[in-house]
């Protein structure tokens, strides 16, 4: 892990610098809150207490204010997810083309329920609402990458590609 850019930050130098700039882009600092939380989560893995504390300090609002916002947005997690967060859409367009089957397949394949994390921390699974891939349904996102026109077979391939990317025994 890179050493922090400045004493007192839990973020990498690059992210800390990005945040330093982010708050200056808007007429009010608080506008940086939602992006900051999402980018912080991308780096730390989830919105930890430490993330809440630092973001609150950077914006100049209370931790309660930050938590009120964090809990509103479904992408923001307050518990660690897997290294690869598999998000299967089952909303109407995907449902019509087998989204539920893809989800069930992932549950079986990964051996975890919806919102579960594999014991090695490599994968987590979540049934999600429409991700904007309706015309290429069924679809899933692994972290931010879209995987579309899925079949159970192609989903297997997707999962095994990610599995191969994770160094042996790596977990969180």
């Amino acid at each position: 892990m890179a050493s922090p850019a400045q004493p007192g930050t839990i973020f990498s130098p690059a992210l800390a610098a990005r945040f330093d700039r982010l708050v200056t882009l808007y007429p009010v600092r608080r506008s940086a809150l939602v992006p900051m939380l999402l980018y912080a989560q991308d780096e730390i893995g989830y919105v930890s207490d430490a993330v809440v504390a630092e973001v609150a300090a950077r914006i100049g609002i209370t931790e309660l204010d930050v938590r009120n916002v964090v809990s509103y947005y479904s992408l923001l997690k307050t518990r660690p997810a897997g290294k690869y967060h598999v998000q299967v859409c089952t909303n109407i367009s995907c449902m019509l083309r087998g989204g539920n089957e893809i989800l069930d397949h992932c549950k079986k394949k990964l051996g975890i329920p919806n919102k579960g994390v594999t014991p090695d921390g490599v994968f987590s699974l979540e049934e999600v609402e429409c991700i904007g891939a309706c015309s290429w349904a069924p679809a899933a996102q692994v972290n931010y990458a879209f995987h579309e026109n899925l079949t159970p077979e192609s989903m297997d391939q997707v999962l095994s590609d990610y599995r191969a990317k994770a160094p042996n025994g790596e977990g969180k």
Partner: protein
Amino acid sequence: MATLTTHPDCVPLVSYRFGKGATNIDKYLELDGYKSARKAMELGPDAIIAEMKTSNLRGRGGAGFPTGMKWSFVPKQSAKPKYVLVNGDESEPGTCKDRLIFEHDPHAVIEGVIIAALAIQAKMGFIYLRGEYRYLIEIMEKAVADAYARGFLGKKIFGSDFDLDVVVQTGAGAYEVGEESALMESLEGKRGIPRIRPPFPAVVGLYGGPTIINNAETIATVPHIFRIGAAEYAKLGTERNGGTRLFCLSGHLVRPGVYELPMGYNLKKMIYEVGGGIPNGKKLKAVVPGGSSTPVLTADEIDIGMDFDQVGKAGSMLGSGGVVVLDETVCMVEFALRTMKFYQHESCGWCIPCREGTDWLKKSLTRLHAGGGVDKDIDNIRYLAENMLGRTFCPLGDAAAMPTIAFVKKFRKEFEDHLEGRGCPKHRAAEPEPALV
């Protein structure tokens, strides 16, 4: 990256640069890019708005409000700064068009922002994308940086006296933030709870300043209107429904995809010719014409032109352009349940009818679908939906209620078939959940 599809009936206007590498600013310029912005700069605010009115462009987010009129509501004089806001929080189930715009033609969005900013004399614009669209945020941020580098954004754009800053903003997962006032709250770093209106955004919007907020497709259409001329653009569509629109065909179709078709294009033709019809020799059962919020049409209600007025006359709405096609195998109770599950998940929870109504309806539909239904459930589902309709703080309650009412009304028999402990005829294995009578 989403696959592009086309059909001979398509009119590539907004999709004119799709697949042509226009994320590259030079390529964009080569394909008539930023000419409209320069043209608009010569026209000045009043003429821009007049052009917009002539174009008959109506908001592509779903409500279909005339864009030119919306812009004209912004007061000329304002003590507070004005803003242009692009709603790229595309989340209506069945809708995946804005994604293509951001992916293939990000500069068109920027150019649209420039024109809108010129129209109301705003000095700052925001392009708000849903957090799930991370790769698009990167594309947009690159495009914005390129536009700054060329002097199309920033101080004295295009060498004029006009300054304009644009910031790309990410959401973090909330359908409700697609509602314009909730989006402004989110952009101010708050929970995505809609605001009390009036005042409307055109008068008191972002940071309290007069604000234009438009759907991404609407904004991306603007430069094309100035590219081909407003009258020409209007002519592409039907009366009071100018131009083309990106229709997202999904569900049981041979060729699902996003197609740019003229406003008023026949729905039946859209399904059977553009979309290639229903696969596997199945029959059409129903169509959700404009995203999950719009009331379902039965197979014999689809011979209509797809514009705001004609779909409205048919008892539904053109909505966001998400055409979801259901074949005869679909269980309408399951479909209604999945729809409600979405609204229950996405309700912001602010007002009682939406928060409690969506939760209750989801529970009832879940139980009914699983075979735990009782007689009065069906009437009760309709009662609840009808009592949410028009009573909620924002349109999300209506969006949940309208399709539900239509499902029960048009497919009541299927709901009844789930009763008496039978559960879903398609999912007989499902464990019935008993009612707590």
